[in-house]
């Protein structure tokens, strides 16, 4: 079983036009396709068709995550494993999602859905595939984000979902939180070369905590915080800070439907090979430092606010 990356997030938005505007201007994605009620977008440094799907909806929140597998046969294997675990499995035809081949949609114990696919239309890097100029045209105040990096979902029983991702879909657990009785309540999982692509934390089932975009360096991130404030984009209490988990430099803000976004840089690299690298472990009483390293405490709203 080889999932190779978190490929895209499909989000529900309550105002499609404003959402597209936000992800284009504030985040720096390009629009790569449109169908009725849907906009597809991609970051400059990815060749696949999209890293974000925006769905016009009455509610905000997650529609599903897209995960890319390395071989077409992996889809059937994942479907079998999910069915054996008693999870709902649904096949989507090629083209059901623009620019994407057939896929298998699995509903996790947390009720979030993940859509595994192999083929994506190749649209190339934003700078082009031939003799590219590394500097993007139309840079709007900031350097562009690099790619969709990871997402954090919340659910009532994180352990079940973490175990399925780790034991059946072969994600590697790079960092986790364990209660005194040994229960996993927090997990950071990766199928690629960075320390997390999907993370699972406690909260209401199906909740989306945030999706994160990778920014090249800290100077860029500081500039981005300035611009978020300048443009009046809603942010959390903390401006620029750092997580103990992964040690990343980070800032949070919200899209116009209330889905939380993160800009982050500096996550360490590690192997996504399942079970080959031991996880870091956090105790519940150290979550303040794990979450906000500078402040050493977590504002109540940080974990309770989800879309």
């Amino acid at each position, binding site marked *: 079983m080889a999932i190779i990356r978190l490929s895209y997030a499909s989000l529900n938005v*309550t*105002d499609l036009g*404003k959402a597209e505007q936000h992800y284009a201007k504030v985040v720096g994605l390009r629009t790569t396709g449109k169908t009725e009620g849907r906009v597809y977008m991609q970051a400059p440094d990815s060749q696949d068709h999209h890293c974000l799907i925006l769905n016009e909806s*009455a*509610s*905000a*929140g997650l529609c599903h995550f897209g995960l890319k597998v390395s071989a077409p046969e992996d889809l059937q294997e994942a479907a079998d494993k999910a069915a054996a675990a008693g999870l709902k499995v649904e096949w989507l035809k090629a083209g059901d999602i623009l620019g994407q081949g057939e896929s298998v949609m699995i509903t996790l114990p947390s009720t979030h859905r993940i859509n595994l696919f192999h083929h994506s239309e190749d649209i190339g890097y934003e700078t082009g595939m031939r003799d590219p100029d590394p500097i993007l045209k139309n840079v709007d105040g900031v350097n562009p984000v690099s790619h969709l990096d990871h997402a954090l979902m919340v659910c009532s029983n994180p352990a079940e979902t973490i175990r399925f991702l780790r034991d059946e879909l072969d994600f590697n657990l790079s960092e986790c939180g364990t209660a005194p009785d040994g229960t996993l309540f927090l997990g950071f999982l990766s199928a690629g070369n960075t320390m997390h692509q999907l993370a699972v934390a406690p909260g209401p089932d199906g909740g989306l905590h945030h999706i994160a975009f990778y920014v090249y360096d800290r100077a860029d991130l500081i500039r981005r915080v300035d611009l978020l404030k300048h443009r009046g984009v*809603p942010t*959390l209490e903390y401006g620029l800070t750092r997580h103990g988990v992964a040690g990343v430099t980070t800032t949070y803000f*919200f*899209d*116009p*439907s*209330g*889905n*939380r976004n993160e800009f982050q840089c500096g996550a360490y690299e590690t192997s996504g090979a399942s079970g080959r690298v031991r996880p870091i472990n956090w105790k519940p009483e150290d979550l303040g430092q794990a979450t906000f390293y500078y402040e050493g405490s977590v504002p109540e*709203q940080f974990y*309770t*606010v*989800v*879309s």
Partner: protein
Amino acid sequence: MKHWRISLTGGEGETVAFDCPEGVSIHAAARTAGFRLRVACGSGGCGICAAELVNGQVDYVSPISAAKIEGCPARAVFLCRATPTEDCCIKTDWQWAVVDKAPLSRRMAINQQGK
């Protein structure tokens, strides 16, 4: 522009009142009046700003998430995007914060008084 009167009773039982122009969110009007409400996403998506509309009517300046408001008690309103269409009495089970506009000038005034 029409202005409506908002009377807000918070988690500690205290009531404050302020004007809110029609078409402006109650959150923004409260902010202008010096009260910081419990708002996070400010975009109708998380429900943290939910309050009870005891009296009056509101509209929304932009959409709020249906799934979130459906999970709330009847008469719940999301203050980050609600705007009054008549005078309103609103109750919250959380407490707002007073916006400290100019801590330095306040400190200077206190020092002056001490002389």
